Structure formats: C-alpha cells, structure tokens
C-alpha cells in the first residue's frame, strides 16, 4: 500500500535527507572550529554571488548532470554502476584522441565528433563489466570498481608513455587547437547583452547536458525501451516473462550509462582544460551516485541535484580559499548525502509514513466513509 502521497515521496523525503546531511555537515564545521553560518555565507557569495561564481557552479553542474544521468539510467535497470569515474576517464581519452589527431575546421563539428568519441569510449569501458554481469553473473558493482582502477592505470600509461609531448615533464597532452575552442557562457551571452564572467569555465556543454536530461527523460518514461529497462530493474522474472532479454537490457542500459559518463569529457576536457590531464575526473563519477540518489533517478531531479552539487563544489572551493576548511568537506557532504538519501532512506521514510498514516486515520474517523 502506498502510505504517502507522491509529493511527499519525491520532495519531502529527499528534502529531509538533505537537511539532515546539512545539519551534520554544520556540526563537522563547528567541530573544526569554524562558524557554519559564516561558511554558508561564504559559499553562497562564492558560488552564486557573481557571474564568476555562477560560471563555476554551472560548469561543475554540467559534469554532475552527465555522471548523475549515467548512474540513474543504470539504476533504472537495477544496476549499480560505480564505474562512472573510470568511464569518464576513458571518455576524456576519447575526446583527446579525436581532437588531437583530426584537424577539425570548426568547433561545432568538433563538438559532435568529440561527443561521439567520449560516448563511445565511455560506453566501451562500461561494456566489459556489463557483458560479464549479463553473461557470467560477475557482480557489476565489484567489476566496475575494479575498472576504475584499471582505467586510472590505462590513462596513466597513455599520458606518461604515449600522448605526452616530447620534452614535457607534465603527464598531459598538448593543448587542443584554437579552432576547437568551445564558446563559453561569456561568449554565448555577450551577443544578447548579458555580461557574463569571462574567466568562468561554463560553456556550451551545459546545453548538451540539458538536452541529455530531456532525452533520458524521454527514453525512460516515454519509450517502449524505457519501459523494458524499468521492468528489468524492478523484476528480472517479470522481464523474462514479457520476453525482455536480460543480456540485451543489461548491455543497453550500461552502454547508455557509460556513454553518458564519458560525455562529461566534452565539458571538462574539451570545454575547460582544452587538453587531457591526469586527474581530469577528480571524483566526479562518484558524485554522480549522490546526484542520482538525491534526484531520485529522475532526469529533472538529477538536473536540480547537479546544480545543488555544483553550488556545493564551487562554494567548497571558496571555503578552502578563505578559511582553514579543506576541500575534503565536500567529500564528507557527498558521503552524508549518499548515506541519508541512499542507505538510510528508511530512517527518514518510516517516521514520515507513520505521521501520514496517523493523519489519514484521523481524517477517516471524522468523515464516515467506507473502510478499505
């Protein structure tokens, strides 16, 4: 029986979880001798107080939209893809290879090609764990974790031994050509008279990320394939009954998931760094888990959660700059969000259900109606 109305399920539960995570984070800040109120003030000014701040917040949010969608699509198929990190690393490699070795005449075509390269590399990196899960029953959580480590080794090898320009000590590729420079929000908004910060890295990839949100929504909720993915995620037996192939859905869902994680590279590698560096991903793949849980695996929820995490990320960076609070505070907040919205979900839900039940019984006893 549904005890809670839908709005409570999709808004109230995540909101309370978020508040709990925020309260605990405040306690952590207090414990290390800083003032949480000041910290929040600093974060707000730093993250959304200027177009510079917004530019960073939206840049991070773009990354998180891609990785959050990646985790969500896999969740819908009942698969827990912890491999977004590795898939995003490989996506970066795909982008670098596409942009370094082909002289693209214009950024538009280059963006399409780079998106394809990122998606293909990310998808391929997800394909192996997917295949092993589908065909050999290897637990996808463990294999995707392993593939993160292997991806780091692959990237390390490629950058140190293959792609590093001669004479450079830095394990990174050379800069991409000027022609493939993506328009930043500053460049995009200037023609319509908005003066957006020039230094902030947010760029046209944000638009691609929003389009990806819409497409994933269509896929999951408005296509037969989406129904199949969701069915398989809810019940493997039922999927079998309906003739929905386990191998097919596992592969498709993970390929889409890996492709989305990989596509993050058009933002951070092509849009921001304009070259591939060793630690390009910086845990964004993992933040995707928090974003997906927070957003209840719904693309619109993911969009909002990504912006929230973009805010936290940029705000956290500002905090580290102006106070003695290290950036790792963000990792703690992320852990708390995962804990409360993911693992301790029932801790929030059970008391809420009791309240709703009490309210309903009270109402039912007032108005004399037929009992269920």
């Amino acid at each position, binding site marked *: 029986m549904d005890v809670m109305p839908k709005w409570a399920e999709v808004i109230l539960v995540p909101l309370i979880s978020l508040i709990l995570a925020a309260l605990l984070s405040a306690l952590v800040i207090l414990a290390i001798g800083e003032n949480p109120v000041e910290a929040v003030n600093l974060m707000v000014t730093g993250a959304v107080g200027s177009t510079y701040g917004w530019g960073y917040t939206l840049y991070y949010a773009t990354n998180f939209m891609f990785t959050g969608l990646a985790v969500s699509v896999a969740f819908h198929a009942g698969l827990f893809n912890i491999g977004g990190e590795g898939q995003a690393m490989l996506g970066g490699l795909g982008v670098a290879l596409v942009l370094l070795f082909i002289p693209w005449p214009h950024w538009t075509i280059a963006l399409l090609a780079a998106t394809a390269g990122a998606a293909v590399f990310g998808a391929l990196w997800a394909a192996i764990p997917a295949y*092993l899960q589908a065909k050999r029953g290897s637990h996808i959580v463990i294999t995707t974790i392993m*593939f993160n480590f292997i991806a780091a080794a692959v990237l390390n*090898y490629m950058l140190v031994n293959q792609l590093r320009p001669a004479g450079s000590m830095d394990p990174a590729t050379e800069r991409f050509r000027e022609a493939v420079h993506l328009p930043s929000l500053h460049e995009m908004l200037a023609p319509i008279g908005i003066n957006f910060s020039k230094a902030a890295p947010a760029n046209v990839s944000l638009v691609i990320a929003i389009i990806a949100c819409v497409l994933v929504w269509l896929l999951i909720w408005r296509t037969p394939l989406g129904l199949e993915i969701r069915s398989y995620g809810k019940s493997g037996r039922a999927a079998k009954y309906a003739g929905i192939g386990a191998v097919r859905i596992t592969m498709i869902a993970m390929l889409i998931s890996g492709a989305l994680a990989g596509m993050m590279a058009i933002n951070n590698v092509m849009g921001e760094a304009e070259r591939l560096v060793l630690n390009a991903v910086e845990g964004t793949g993992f933040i995707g888990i928090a974003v997906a849980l927070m957003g209840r695996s719904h693309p619109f929820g993911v969009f909002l959660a990504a912006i929230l995490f973009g805010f936290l990320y940029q705000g956290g960076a500002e905090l580290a700059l102006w106070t003695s609070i*290290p950036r790792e505070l*963000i990792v703690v907040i992320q*852990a708390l969000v995962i804990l409360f919205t*993911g693992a301790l979900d029932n801790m929030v839900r059970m008391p809420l259900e009791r309240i709703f039940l009490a309210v309903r019984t009270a109402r039912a006893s007032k108005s004399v109606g037929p009992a269920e």
Partner: protein
Amino acid sequence: MDFLALFDLSVLDSTVRLTTPLLLACLAGLFSERAGIFDIGLEGKMLFAAFFSAAVAAMTGSVWLGLLAGIAASMALSGIHGLASITFRGNQLISGVAINFLAAGMTVLIAQDWFQQGGRTPSLIGGGRFEPITLPFANALNGVPFFGPIYAELISGHSILVYVSLLAVPGTWWLLFRTRFGLRLRAVGENPAAVDTAGVSVMGLRFVAVGICGILCGIAGAYLATGLQAGFVKDMTAGRGFIALAALIFAKWRPWHALWATLLFGYLQAIALRPDIIEGALGFRVQVQLLDALPYILTVVILAGFVGKAIPPRAGGEPYVKER
C-alpha cells in the same frame, strides 16, 4: 634470466607484510558477508582506523592506544553500516559507498584540523610504531642453511599484528565451524528466517558480525599506519579494501582460502615494487602501470568465473524482513 629471483627472500618478506592488511580486511569481510551483510566499505573502515591509530599514537606516543583508537574508529563506521543495512534495511552497497567517502573526507578534514600538515599525521617514532619482533632463536638459527634465513628473515622479524593476522585464520575457522556462534552466524547468512523462528535475534547476530568486521578492519588500518608505514597519509589504503573484497570472492568465503588468496595478492603487490626483478626474470620490461593494475585485472578474471564459480551466502545483500 633469473626466475628464482621472483621468490627472493626480500620479496617474500614484503609479501608477508603486504598480505597482513589484506588478510585482516578479508577476514573482516568474511564475518560480515557470512552473516549476510555485504560490505564494500572495508576500504573506508581501514582508512578511518589508519588515521585514528596514527593520530592517537602520535599524540600519546603509545602505539597500543593508537591501535585501540583505530579499532574504535572502524567500529564506529561499522555501527553506521549496521544501522543503515540492519536496522533500517537500507541498501548495503550504497551504505558501503557512503562509508568509503565519509572516511576519505573526514580523515583529511580532521588531520588538517589537528596537525595542519596537509592531511597527514606527523611521522611516528619510537613507541608510536609497532616494532618488529625477533622470534626466539632467530639469530642463532640464521646460520643453518636454507631454513635458517627463512626462519630468521621471513618468519621472524615482523610486528605483532602480522602474527595476529595469521592466527586469526585458524581462529576464524574454529569460530565458524566449531562453535554455536559460528553455526548461527552461517545460518543467518543463508536463511535468516530459520534463525529468527528458532528464537535467535537476526539483528543481534548481524550486528555482532558487523562488529567483528569493524575490529578486524581496525587492526588492518592500524597496521597500515603504525606497522607498515610510520604515520597516516591521505588515501593510504589505496584500494586495499577492494582487493580484500576480491580475495574474499576468490576464497569463496572460506578462512583458509582467504589466507592463500591474500598471499597471492600480497605477492603481486610486493613484486610490483621490484620491476628490476621482473625484468631480470622475464627478460623484458613490464610496464609499471600494468603491474599496478594486475590485482584488479586478476579480480575481474576471477569474477568472470574463469577460475571456478563463487557462490555467495544465499541471504547476502538482502535486508531481513519478517514474513510468514
């Protein structure tokens, strides 16, 4: 070419040392998963324990207090995992992920607050570390050919925690297969309803199992920071919790097999530190990145079932809900 160099005493000696944290974590996972609670948070618990043991050892100068602090820290995270996955019947995998991040973030945060050294503890000296123990007659027997050096260098001369980890193997076996507690623990991982209807608390048993897991992870972490190395550095577990998890699958959740599996992975880690020996033995250079990735690749191969099928405890990963 020198194949024997692959089994050089120095390599085997570091194998023993590198195996210790893996073995302890693997046995920790064994207790938890045998009771039906999946734990991918071994990594985080070890990291948490590593930090607190090093921090307390640095502040008090006593490694034993450090060990206790490490165990307590690891058990605190076990408590969270238990709360999420046993009491509130949450997703055990997600809880594990959260615990790993919590440990990764909190250790640096607290380290920075306490020591201001960029997320590390001060280097441990003297009583702040577990010193090697020389077993009886080690020096006297060193002259005996073959066995002498093996006893003196390989078996003797490790810190107490190494021996604790080795004794934990028969200890775990005995506990699991010869005692009432073991019978109930195995039963609760296979069919919690059977335990429940027999009048034994499923929650209680699972919390005890998760608690033991915390203790062992605590010792593993303390060994990392106060035995293997002299202090805590950021992310010092470096994936060991996941390798231990892989070893557990490889060992099919059996204590003795866990020893062999972790020895293998410990050896791989030890040999990866000596590319010169590998080149000498094989006649060509092996990329260091390949060596780094080898435990993970091997794990995937094992998981793919090319080396025997691993069947986990039947009730593993499923929260227990009472029903008829």
